[in-house]
């Protein structure tokens, strides 16, 4: 009898344990109504919802639960992606315009309504299409700086690795219709070593490469790679880490064009520099690194993305004409 009692107690403890563990679980579901996606985070734990704070920056929404939780995932619609990092969930929503959120009880849940921007009607056909005709043969690659545990510049409400991911994916979408192909080097929030990135770049024929990062400065930084004095086009043929030597003049022209267009479009200053960046040094195409000012200086709304995309297209057209 004592044995059975013991067993029951152990079973009870185990059950309580399981229910306690489940208490901090969060599941998510989403549904679509005209122009709006409703995302619901549900849990048994009241305090998780009451303490949660929600921040929004461009297409990224950060939900800080302020205590550890167990994210169980759930059904998500295609434009929504969710990443867990420490006590927060980062939600990336394509074409996000604004959000509204509300906390509800029984069961405790956080409801976020994400309103999406209307898809823009295509620009007047004859002018733009004629102008961008030269770009039809170009393959353009975008690299979202950092990723995974390497988060880059961090602010209260943003992480460089996640913001660059959403910016590059939007830029690629805007530029894709004008070029042969717009490729993303990093599509997820994963850490890729510089060497891994170089291997991936090496597997694709590209005509232009843009690495997108953030800076704490209040201006844009535009870098091309500084090549060592001994690196000539000949050396570049044998030493793949210096392959950029053969393209450095074209990279410089591309950097200047992008910079000018960005200055005109955003009214922010641009600093150009040549520094020995190992990623750019090994790329066999014109290659530029853009460091964008952090979100306190420039808000990354749809208008800013349009300006950046237009600047890149303008620079590519200058380049294609050469």
């Amino acid at each position, binding site marked *: 009898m004592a044995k059975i009692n013991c067993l029951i107690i152990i079973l009870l403890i185990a059950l309580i344990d399981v229910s306690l563990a489940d208490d901090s679980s969060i599941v998510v579901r989403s549904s679509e109504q005209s122009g709006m996606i409703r995302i619901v985070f549900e849990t048994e734990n009241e305090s998780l919802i009451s303490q949660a704070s929600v921040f929004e920056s461009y297409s990224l929404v950060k939900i800080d639960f302020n205590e550890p939780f167990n994210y169980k995932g759930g059904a998500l619609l295609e434009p929504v992606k969710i990443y867990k990092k420490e006590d927060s969930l980062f939600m990336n929503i394509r074409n996000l315009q604004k959000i509204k959120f509300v906390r509800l009880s029984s069961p405790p849940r956080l409801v976020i309504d994400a309103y999406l921007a209307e898809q823009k009607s295509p620009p007047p056909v004859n002018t733009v299409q004629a102008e961008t005709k030269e770009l039809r043969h170009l393959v353009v690659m975008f690299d979202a700086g950092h990723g995974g545990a390497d988060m880059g510049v961090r602010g209260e409400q943003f992480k460089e690795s996640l913001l660059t991911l959403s910016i590059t994916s939007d830029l690629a979408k805007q530029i894709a219709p004008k070029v042969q192909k717009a490729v993303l080097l990093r599509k997820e929030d994963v850490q890729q070593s510089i060497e891994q990135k170089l291997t991936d770049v090496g597997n694709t024929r590209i005509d232009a490469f843009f690495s997108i990062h953030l800076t704490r400065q209040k201006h844009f*930084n535009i870098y091309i790679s*500084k090549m060592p004095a001994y690196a000539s086009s000949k050396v570049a043929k044998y030493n793949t880490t210096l392959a950029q030597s053969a393209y450095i003049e074209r990279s410089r022209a591309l950097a200047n064009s992008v910079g000018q267009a960005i200055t005109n479009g955003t009214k922010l200053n641009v600093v150009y520099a040549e520094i020995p960046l*190992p990623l750019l040094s090994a790329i066999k195409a014109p290659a530029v690194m853009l460091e964008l000012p952090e979100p306190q200086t420039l808000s990354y709304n749809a208008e800013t993305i349009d300006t950046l995309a237009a600047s890149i297209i303008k620079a590519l057209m200058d380049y294609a004409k050469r």
Partner: protein
Amino acid sequence: MFIIAPILLLCSAAVAYYFFIWRDDGETLSQHIVSRKEQEKVVDNSTQIHIYYPEDSELKKITIKSKQTFDAIKSTEVALTELFSGKNIPNRSSIPADVKLLGLYYGVDKILYVDVSSELKKNFQGDATAELMLLKSIFETVINNMEAEDVKVLIDSAEAESLGGHFYLRYPLRRTVTQEIVTDGLHKAG
């Protein structure tokens, strides 16, 4: 044949002992840095220690006095500890917090291996220029206090690919940090 192996082993152990002297002679670093009051007393038999530190996109220098030592590695250790602790550095906002110097190893190839705690990587939050300046400050601090051909940074005694995601730590620093940076000023908008 059986005798050669142990002798070889002994020889290599002796060589290893000779070169792998991780700095430890019972004296703590804080003891080694002379406090300001004491400075005047030891003016004549003190060593000058040069520290290069990053401030925004520039490299700045301070010189402090330390107890006289004829051991250049000891001076370098004091200098790097100062760089990371930043006690005498006027503006230490570009230096990651809580970094500890774990050890220095001077290789036969005249490369100084600088072993630092993982806070150097974890607490670094800068852009590409800030990363380059931080690497440059470590390099310049070393080569201005001792004769070293190159500097290689280890994180928690292990090889790391990068400090901030823009430059390699995989190779010694000279070829990255000694290339002249070409900056084309601020292009004003409007």
